[in-house]
């Protein structure tokens, strides 16, 4: 059936690249100015009455021609092609290779460790799996094609990040999660990965002072490796083509949190999720959209938490990272399990229905509400000024980490997307 896709001009390069990757370099598209969001009906009508923001022709002429102008020969065949990525790049000096990797956007714009044959071979000793075993597939967003990769390709990126061979099972587990750490979402989502189990101590990961800062080799390079492998193995993370995050995200540089299980009064995350305490597990959270922080629990902790929970971007639920001091404080208040505190948070994460549904991303859930899917259906039925719960307990997670120099907590946007057994990749 003849069709025309309409986009805003900001996405022109992305649309063309996507159409090409689907074998349709001549896909007919029309472009309005950007943005559409938050514009009045009159403003949008002006877009329709105006010019195509890319071609300069009348917008509706572009649309109508897209549906009626005869096809040309190239339209009838599409474009089939195979893209190959070689095993090695052309040999060169180290300086030139560093420059080439940066120019090709194969780096995170920080210097990398060049993936020589010897270094990659050494990295491969970190797993029992053969180099040609397929690990998984990744893509920057749901409408792009997924690229495939094997153990050796993951090892190449692990080397580039500066990781050591003993870290490799964690990196393979993250790569196998199916969750990219280089999402193309315009909201600039990143991933935050939580590591649980014996592997934390085997790799001498830091769960204490500066756990989320640049103070531990494994913490720093594991997160970096996840980012590098995501962008390179999925076919890129290039602004305007395979990355559209408006502001970007510092969490994308590296964001790994090993839980301080030994100093926590509560069950570790992976045990909450059904794994054995002796299992080593990586949990991937998709978020980093906001960060709140506080002390506590002080006398007014409930007010503080309510304010913070009401101030989140409600599309992305909270992942709490709490110093052990904070966790013990909550135990003294009677919250002797994570589940009890999570239940309190779910009961106290409240907004009016009007505020909830006005959120740009929440509106994407409206079809589920209309279809009767709970809890969205009940939230949609609420009157505009009715106060509603915005999270279920299963949306909220708590992880314990920190050096006990301060009773600090952070509330980081993070929806749990995958929990992967690291031991499967040893």
């Amino acid at each position, binding site marked *: *059936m*003849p*069709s*025309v*896709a*309409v986009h*805003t001009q900001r*996405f022109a390069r992305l649309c063309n690249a996507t159409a090409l990757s*689907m*074998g*349709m370099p*001549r896909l007919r598209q029309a472009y*309005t100015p950007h943005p*559409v*969001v*938050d*514009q009045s*009906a009159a403003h*949008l*009508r002006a877009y*329709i009455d105006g010019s195509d923001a890319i071609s300069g022709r009348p917008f*509706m002429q572009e*649309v109508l021609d897209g*549906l*009626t102008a*005869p*096809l040309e020969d190239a*339209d009838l*065949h*599409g474009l*089939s092609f*195979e*893209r190959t*990525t070689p*095993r*090695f790049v052309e*040999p*060169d*000096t180290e300086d030139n*290779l560093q420059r080439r990797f940066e120019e090709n956007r194969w780096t995170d714009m920080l210097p990398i460790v*060049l*993936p*020589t*044959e010897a270094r990659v071979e050494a990295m491969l000793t970190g797993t029992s799996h053969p180099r040609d075993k397929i690990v998984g597939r990744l893509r920057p967003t749901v*409408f792009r*094609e*997924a*690229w*495939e990769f094997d153990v050796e*390709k993951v090892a*190449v*990126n692990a*080397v*580039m990040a500066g990781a050591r061979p003993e870290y490799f099972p964690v990196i393979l587990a993250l790569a196998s999660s199916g969750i990219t750490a280089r999402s193309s979402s*315009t909201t600039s989502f990143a991933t935050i990965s939580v590591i649980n189990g014996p592997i934390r101590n085997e790799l001498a990961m830091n769960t204490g002072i500066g756990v989320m800062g640049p103070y531990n080799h494994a913490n720093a390079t594991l997160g970096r490796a996840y980012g590098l492998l995501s962008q*390179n193995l999925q*076919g890129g993370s290039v602004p305007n083509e395979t990355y559209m995050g408006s502001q970007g995200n510092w969490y994308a540089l590296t964001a790994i949190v090993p839980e301080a299980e030994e100093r926590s009064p509560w069950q570790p995350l992976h045990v909450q999720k059904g794994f054995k305490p002796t299992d080593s597990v990586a949990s991937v959270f998709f978020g980093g959209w906001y960060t709140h922080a506080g002390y506590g629990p002080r006398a007014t902790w409930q007010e503080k938490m309510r304010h913070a929970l009401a101030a989140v971007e409600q599309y992305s639920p909270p992942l709490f990272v709490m110093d052990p001091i904070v966790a013990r404080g909550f135990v003294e208040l009677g919250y002797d399990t994570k589940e009890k505190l999570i239940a309190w948070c779910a009961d106290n994460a409240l907004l009016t229905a009007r505020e909830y549904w006005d959120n740009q991303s929440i*509106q994407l859930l409206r*079809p*589920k509400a209309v279809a009767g899917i709970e809890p969205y259906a009940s939230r949609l039925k609420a009157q505009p000024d009715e106060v509603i719960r915005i999270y279920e307990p299963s949306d909220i997670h708590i992880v314990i980490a920190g050096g006990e120099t301060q009773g600090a907590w952070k509330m980081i946007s993070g929806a749990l997307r995958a929990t992967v057994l690291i031991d499967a990749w040893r």
Partner: protein
Amino acid sequence: MTERSKVHDPRGYPPKVVGKRLASRLPSLDGKTVYLVDCLFDNSAVFMDQLQQWFGEHLPAVDTRIIRPKETWADDPEMRAAIAADGDAAILGIGL
């Protein structure tokens, strides 16, 4: 002489791209049914309403029908079947 290093290419394996031909175009939209597919992004419904009004004012011989998938970011075979059953063309949009 500066030593040259041999290093691995860090990229994954892209899928083969299979060319797709575009559907045949219509000689005219007069008397045809054009579905306006609201992709459910914020304000796309308002845009489609305005687009439908434009057709009503300028090309009244075109029957336009707004249709929405069940979910954002997910294929909706039922919606596609509905469009294929009695539609002649489609305009899809619009995000952000």
